């Protein structure tokens, strides 16, 4: 049985906070709003006060705990490595248990109360049409991320695809003998919004002769539910994914979404031995490609005369897990790419799971900073490794009046590789 930690089980971690204040230098939310409740130290103090019974989950406590992107920037710089994102997520689950999901975020309540959601959706003519939204399974992370009634009309969103990625490809794509077998964990972003990234993933692995399994019944990784405090949903999704991914023997479970990578590779790791096993097998696509000889193969491709200036945005869910080199290595190896590093490539884009829906103003402020760094880099394209970041970065750049386009590195890779049809 999958089981997430209760806040009480994190007491020792909470007590590791020595209140030095170092997190104030690194928290994107604190950067947008200078209040102690916005920063890790404040949230840890509040969590401790809740555990000690000094305060309940009053509206203001809940508000402070909701003001966290779970980006892990504080953890990365914390001298005592206090896992604030785990503490905040556990506190949100407590809040959901005590008060129901509704009090934590009205939007999440609307999603969980499905019939109501559908009614509201039908009435909104916003970015997501109710028709397309119906294609999302009830437990898709995208529903938690984008409960349509709470979407700001000014937000740019990609349209949902009329044919999800997993319906476009067979469940098994045979590769060459002697090559590894990987399961492709697509995630909701690629499946419902960016199927082209999925197709690029397949093209890249076929180029290396890898056998690809794409289980049809895989579900959302659960990360948006972690962010929303929907603990039960996370646990159910983890079990469903474990079953789907364990059906066939594979060498690796590969993701092309930083959030899914953190979901399977980190959140699941603590949920039980078989989940830890799955977590160990989980690999980011560029870590996989870099360790399976792709950079050398790319070096052999002919170089075009005009190259495009591309910069890279580090998704928090990769950066905080130490994955920063491999995506850059692949980008630099692409024949059509002139790579430029931007300032603050490793700061959060401001999406933060469900954060940007409930705190769009702060999310926009955080995004605006990023858009400034993108512009200053002189890049024409921003490449990254996470559909969530792609969406948020493009929205931020559009708001800043920029012309840069945001793409997944896989799309650039697919462009560079010689044509080869998808296997039937």
């Amino acid at each position: 049985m999958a089981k997430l930690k209760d806040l009480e089980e994190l007491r020792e971690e909470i007590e590791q906070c020595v209140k030095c204040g170092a997190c104030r230098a690194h928290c994107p939310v604190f950067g947008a709003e200078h209040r102690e409740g916005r920063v890790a130290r404040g949230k840890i103090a509040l969590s401790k006060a809740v555990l000690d019974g000094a305060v309940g989950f009053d509206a203001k406590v809940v508000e402070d705990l909701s003001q966290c992107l779970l980006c892990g920037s504080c953890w990365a710089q914390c001298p005592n490595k206090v896992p604030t994102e785990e503490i905040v997520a556990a506190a949100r689950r407590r809040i959901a248990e005590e008060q129901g999901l509704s009090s934590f975020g009205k939007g999440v309540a609307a999603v969980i109360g499905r019939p109501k959601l559908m009614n509201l959706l039908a009435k909104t003519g916003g970015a997501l049409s109710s028709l397309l939204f119906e294609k999302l399974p009830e437990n898709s992370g995208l529903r938690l991320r984008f409960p349509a009634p709470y979407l700001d009309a000014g937000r740019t969103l990609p349209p949902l695809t009329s044919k999800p990625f997993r319906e476009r490809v067979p469940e098994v794509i045979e590769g060459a003998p002697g090559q590894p077998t990987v399961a492709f964990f697509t995630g909701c972003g690629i499946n419902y919004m960016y199927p082209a990234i999925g197709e690029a993933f397949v093209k890249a692995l076929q180029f290396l002769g890898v056998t690809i399994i794409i289980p049809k019944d895989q579900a959302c990784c659960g990360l948006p539910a972690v962010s929303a405090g929907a603990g039960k949903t996370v646990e159910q999704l983890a079990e469903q994914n474990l079953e789907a991914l364990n059906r066939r023997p594979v060498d690796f479970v590969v993701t092309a979404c930083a959030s899914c990578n953190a979901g399977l590779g980190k959140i699941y790791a603590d949920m039980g031995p078989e989940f830890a096993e799955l977590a160990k097998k989980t690999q980011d696509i560029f870590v996989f490609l870099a360790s399976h000889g792709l950079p050398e193969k790319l070096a052999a491709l002919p170089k075009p005369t005009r190259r495009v200036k591309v910069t890279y945005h580090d998704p928090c869910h990769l950066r905080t897990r130490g994955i920063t080199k491999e995506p850059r290595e692949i980008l630099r190896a692409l024949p059509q790419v002139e790579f430029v590093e931007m300032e603050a490539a490793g700061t959060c884009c401001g999406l933060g799971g469900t954060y940007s829906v409930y705190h769009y103003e702060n999310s926009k402020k955080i995004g605006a900073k990023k858009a400034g760094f993108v512009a200053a880099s002189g890049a024409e394209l921003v490449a990254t490794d996470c559909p969530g970041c792609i969406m948020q970065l493009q929205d931020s750049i559009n708001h800043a009046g920029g012309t840069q386009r945001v793409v997944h590195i896989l799309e650039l890779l697919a462009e560079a590789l010689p044509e080869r049809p998808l296997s039937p």
Partner: protein
Amino acid sequence: MLDPRIINELKGIVGAGNVATDMAALICYSYDATQQQFLPEVVVHPASAEEISRILRLANRELIPVFPRGAGSGFSGGSLPTKGGIVLTTERMDRILAIDQENLVATVEPGVVTEQFQQAVEKVGLFYPPDPASLKFSTLGGNVAECAGGPRCVKYGVTKDYILGLEVVTPTGDIIVTGGPTMKGVVGYDLTKLLCGSEGTLGIITRIVIKLLPLPEAKKTMLVLFDSIDGAAKGVSAIVGAKIIPTTLEFMDGRTLDCVRQATGLQVPDAARAVLIIEVDGDREFLDKQANRIAEIIAPLGVVETRIATTPEESEALWAIRRAVSPSLRKVNPDKFNEDICVPRSKVPEMIRKVDAISAKYGIPIVNFGHAGDGNIHVNVMIDKKVPGELAKAEQAIEEVFKGALELGGTMSGEHGVGIAKAPYIPLEITPQTATYMKALKKALDPNNILNPGKIFLDS
């Protein structure tokens, strides 16, 4: 709980959104890096000297204590609301108002974060040297109030050496200006120096005029391992005696080195019992020469190994060893008392021997590291508070450490300040007459004892 009438008046001054009385806010402004907690009754976020002036007039009329706060990252409890009342934060006053490149002077509000200010002046080739370990998050207002130091102070001096003038709201609510943007100025008492390090007891700083230097072209870092702390200390004297003042002269004792070894797997020879990290800055062409000269000077003093960084990455790797110290210490014991005594440079080895003896006497680990160049030693008393009797032993050991430093002509605090943490020990260092002089100032300027009461002196 304050009268709703008073809360409404505060809201009238700073705006309703900048006054908080909910439990979440009170908890979030109840602590600092001492890890002690005191709940205030209200948190206010003013945006100007005028607003602060009105708050202080209100506080005097109603006799409510006011506790100014920057980032809340102090090590002595200077910003803790020990008597409830009002926490007044400078978080909204965070603008760099001017960087005057002709006169090498900048003007800032108190809530500007030190590192952000340094980055801003470095962009135009200027330099603000004070570098407390907290510089990424502590504020300039807090740095001035505590007269913060840092590794670079051995060459460049401490915060007060860079403050030319201040705008300050007095404890009774007047707005005054001290000093100004000129390099010289002797009209009236030097209130700027008095307010630097006054720990928020004599006024609330609302504007700071800062002296800047040209940014040195380059720097060079070296790490030297010695076979004894005496060798390292003699090394410090020898370098300074040879008329070289490095930018930083950081040391770690053998116990510190053991902690880092255990925690990080750092590869250093077993014979190494002390470390100096030496950095020099200036024109690029002189640095190699200077680094080699230093290596020559210290060579006869029991050097086990010298590592000189040739690239910024190698320099970073050397500093990473120093930064690994604090996290490593937690592996020794969970609770740490970080004292910051300062002794004359030449007395460092004697002080370390005293600390070792105190450590042995009480049977608790004490590790020493810090700024050898100016005799500022961070004495870390490591205990587990959960073990009965350990806290009492630690307190006795700390008192002996203070006495030891004073015997050598030193001071209890080089850079953290007194706050509440060292207030009980004040009589060890300050004579009754000096204390009376200081208290008379406080009493005259703050007759109602409104501003940061209970700090520095226990009975104030």
